Structure formats: C-alpha cells, structure tokens
C-alpha cells in the first residue's frame, strides 16, 4: 500500500459503516462540484497523497516506476489546490462546470494506515462548449480523526483507454 505514515498508529483502524463512508464521499463530491477547493483539501491529513495513474493503469500501479498523470505528495497537492483557485490556472479559468456521480461504494479492508474504501465515479466536465466524461474508480485510505473522516490517500483510476478526447485532468476528477 502506498499510504504514508500520515496519522498511522499501531492499531488497525476500525471501519465505520458503509453509510458513513457514502456520506463522506457524497460530501467530498459536492465540495468539488462547487469548487470549494480549500475545504476539499482540508479533508486530507497532513502527509496524505493524491494520485491519478495513466488511463487504464492497474490498481497496483506504482508512481516510482510508472508514468502517471498526477502523483502529488501533500506539499504538491496543496499547490494544486492553490492553483485551482487562481485565474492564472488558465485551463480552469473560467472554472469548468463539473458534476460527479459516486456509486458502488464498498469497504474493502482495514489496516494500521486506515480503512480502504472503493467506489466508482462518473465525472462530467463542461468547458468551452465541450463536454468531457471521466469514468473509473477511486481507492481511498480513510481514517476517523476526532470524529471526522479524513483522507490518508486517494488514488483515482480512470477506466478509459486514453485521454482522447478529454485531453487533460486539470480538475480533481
């Protein structure tokens, strides 16, 4: 597992109910749909990672060996979020219209780093009169910290064979 030491303790994280994770994921999607990027970033624990391998990559893709689209540590993710808020982020200025559907939420396991949660998604992005569709599955490692669910790692797998015609991942898919 790629999860860093963020928030790790010796004990195995105790899973919450699926409904708890569903609520969390729907809320996360809403923050992104509404471009509330700072609040979205606040879901991540310090030291967390965010990765998007190339379209069609397997779940065990490793950003130390393979070329991804995105492989952010916490520092770079912070800058990605800051960039999302800038007018000089030309690709997302004016902001594209985005909407996310989350489904097939499953609790996949738990270890010391957190609870593994998976879901599928369809994200629609509309900009410059062009509609792009991104579909795939997310893999999270989540931890409950002081009563709130936080992200230790988020990996987004695009179940596409290429980024044609989407062209870019300048949003958080």
């Amino acid at each position, binding site marked *: 597992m790629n999860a860093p030491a963020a928030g790790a303790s010796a004990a195995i994280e105790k899973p919450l109910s699926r409904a708890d994770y569903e609520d969390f994921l729907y809320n996360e999607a809403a923050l992104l749909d509404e471009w509330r990027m700072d609040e979205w970033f606040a879901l991540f624990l310090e030291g967390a990672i965010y990765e*998007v*391998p*190339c*379209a069609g*990559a397997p779940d065990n893709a490793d*950003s*130390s*060996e*393979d*070329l*991804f*689209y*995105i*492989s952010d540590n916490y*520092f*770079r993710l912070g*800058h*990605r979020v*800051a*960039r999302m808020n*800038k007018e*000089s*982020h*030309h*690709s*997302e200025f004016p902001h594209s219209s985005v909407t996310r559907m989350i489904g097939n939420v499953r609790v996949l396991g738990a270890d010391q780093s957190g609870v593994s949660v998976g879901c599928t998604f369809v994200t629609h992005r509309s900009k*410059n009169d*062009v509609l792009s569709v991104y579909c795939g599955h997310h893999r999270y490692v989540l931890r409950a910290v002081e009563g709130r669910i936080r992200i230790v790692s988020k990996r987004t797998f695009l179940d596409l*064979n*290429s*980024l*044609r*015609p*989407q*062209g*870019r*991942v*300048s949003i958080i898919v």
Partner: protein
Amino acid sequence: MQGLHASESPTRFAPMILDDRDKGIFRVARTAFIDEDVLLRERDRIFNRCWLYLGHESEIAEPNDFITRNVGGKELIFNRDRKGEPHAFFNTCPHRGALVERRPKGNAISFKCFYHGWAFNNNGAFATRMSPGDYPEDFNSDGCANLTRVAKLQGYRGFYFVNFDPGAMSLDDYLADAKGILDIVADHGPRGMEIVGSEQKYSIRANWKLLVENSIDGYHAVDTHATYFDYLSEAIGGPAALSKRSFVWNLSGGHSSIEGEAPWGRPVARWIPAWGEAAKAEVDDIRAELESRVGAERADRIARMGRNTAIFPNLIINDIMAITIRTFYPLEPNLMNVSAWALGVKGESRGFRKRRLDNFLEFLGPGGFATPDDLEALEAAQRGYAAHREAAWNDISRGMKRERFVSTDEEQMRCFWREWSRRMEDAQ
C-alpha cells in the same frame, strides 16, 4: 513584399508564410491551421515523405518483442524477430485488412489475424497452411500474403523512425544537426536510455503545428505558466527565474532547439537544495560518471543546460526538468492526437526514478501544472482562427533582426515554418 495578401482571392497554395528578412517581419496565414486542403497536402507532402518517430529501442528490448502504434495516421507494428532484427510493418492483414495485432505490446513469435485466421512469422512472412485448391499453387510467390513492410525503418542512438517514401533520403541526412541533440539525450546514462512505463495518450482541439510552436516557445513560459513558477519557487526555496542567457539552434532541415539554464533540478545532473543532502551525493556521482565518460565541458552542457527540440515535422524531445518525447498527428485541421513518454536513464535507482517522474509530473502531461494551460492556449488560438478572413495572420517576428537569437525569440519556429513552406509550396 512577398506573400499572400489577406484580401487577394487565394490561389489555394499561394505562399502561406511571409518572410521579410529586411524588415524583420515573419507572418503565417491562419488558414494554414484550419484549411482541409492544407491538411490533405500535409499528409501527402509532409507525413508521407518525412521521417516520422516510431519508438525507442527500449520498447522492444528483447527478441520477439513488439509494440503496435499509430504513426502518421497508419497502424504499425514495431517488433524484433527471433534473431532480434527490428522491423516495421503495417498492422493490416494482407487478406482483407483487419489489424493482425490488437494488443499495445507484447512478445510474440508470430501474429495471427483473428478475422479468418491468416498467420505470419514475426519477420512478416505468411505462415498459414491452406488446403489444396483454395488458392493457386504459386500464391504468395509475389509476396502478396506477407505483411506489408514500411518502406524505410532506421534508428539513431536508440530513436527509431519510419519513412513511407521509398525514395526518401537516409535518416542520417534527414536528421542533420538534430543528431547532436539526440546524442546529448542518449548520453545521459552510461548504459543508455529507456522509456519509463506508460504512454500518455491525449488529444488537443487545435492544429498540430500549434503544438510544434508551443513546445519550443520560450516566450510564453512566464505568462502561460505563472502558476507553475509560483509552485517552483516554493519547491526550490528561492526565486524561479529562467536564465537570460540562452541559445537558439537552427539544426537545419526544419529542426531547431532552444537551450538554456533553468531553476529546476535535473535528474542528470543538477542538484537543488530541496532534494536534500543524500540526493546531492547521488547527483555528484552521476555528474562524476558523466564527466569521466564525455569530458568536463560536454558534461556541463548535458547536466546544467536544458533544451527543447523540435525535429521536423512532429517530434518533440524536451530535456528539461525531466525528458519527454512527444509526437502528434492531425486527425482534422482542428484536432490532434498526442502521445507522450518519459525517457529515463537505464539502471537509475528507484529513488532517483521517482524524482525524475515527480519532476516530469510537476510540469508535463495532462495533469501537470503546465501542459493543461498549454492546451487551453492552443485551443483558444484555434477558436480565434475562425475569424481568419478578418484577422488573417499570426506574427512570428520576435527577435528576427537580432544578431544572436535568444530562446524568447521566435527564430526556432521560423526554422519550422520555412521548412514547412518549402515542402508545401514547392512545385512537385
């Protein structure tokens, strides 16, 4: 003054560039980016006649390895036969045309078409037993049932190219002074270079020539990529300014390169404090090995300087904070498919490979801090060209009268356009 005036009724292929060296004015007609007939002519005169990048030797490292790839709009197989000899075939069955190999890569001693089952050795030879009477006795005596070979396949320092024109000049002559840049890139590592992992396959709703320009455009960096430089200055803990001292190389044949020093770290081999002391020792070792192999002066150029290179017509090799190889092909005047790869040093440590990939991703590719903004710029330009009747010309004059060009000039693009225009406008 030469060139097509906007109000003249255009003879279809009247000159599309205006190149006034006395006045220092260079312009490109915007119809060059939107006209269907221009694209048809490009297919004929450029993509069917120039050497086109096919792949890197590391992608077919072992005997019987293959990759399939679309090059110049055609589906190809690039493979090694049992003896390790490289081949390039059209990936189309001689029977009735289906792709004979549909996987992106693999290892195979033969290819079998799934449609009616024709099979071929990996040297292209037809290898199917037919019942007597199905075909004439001497069927395939003319080779009609073998895979069709691409007219020319040649490599230089591990970079393989194809040419669809049997009469084409040699790759060596074609590459001209661009060989010097390929030498520099190939010399990064003692055991050679390799493609690292996946291909980034994406598309841009813009004319392909805009990506040539953009990939070697030192002028746009500060404006288009402001958010990247915001990030970089924090990542390196200091000001992230591009060096004022830079070079522009006309590599002839329409190839060109810009070279200069930049604030980012380079895996080979420019350390920055943000990488930490352990990495410094590793970078020092890489640098020392490089010096012992290629000499101090050349090692300094390889390690300290970065370079953006365009090899005519559609190959970009940018050796900057990481190395990317990028090629693209127009499906329509306003749509191109792009393929991009990371090139790394063979045998580098896992930690260093990670650093190389991090460097790549901070700037390059569909999720980088820079490339998406390039796409937006190209697509914005393409939309602007709809008004080509009223706003007819692009200006590419910057620095034209300067004695020594710098990378924020546009001479490197003029090198491309002069070759483009020579090929498009020559009576043939």
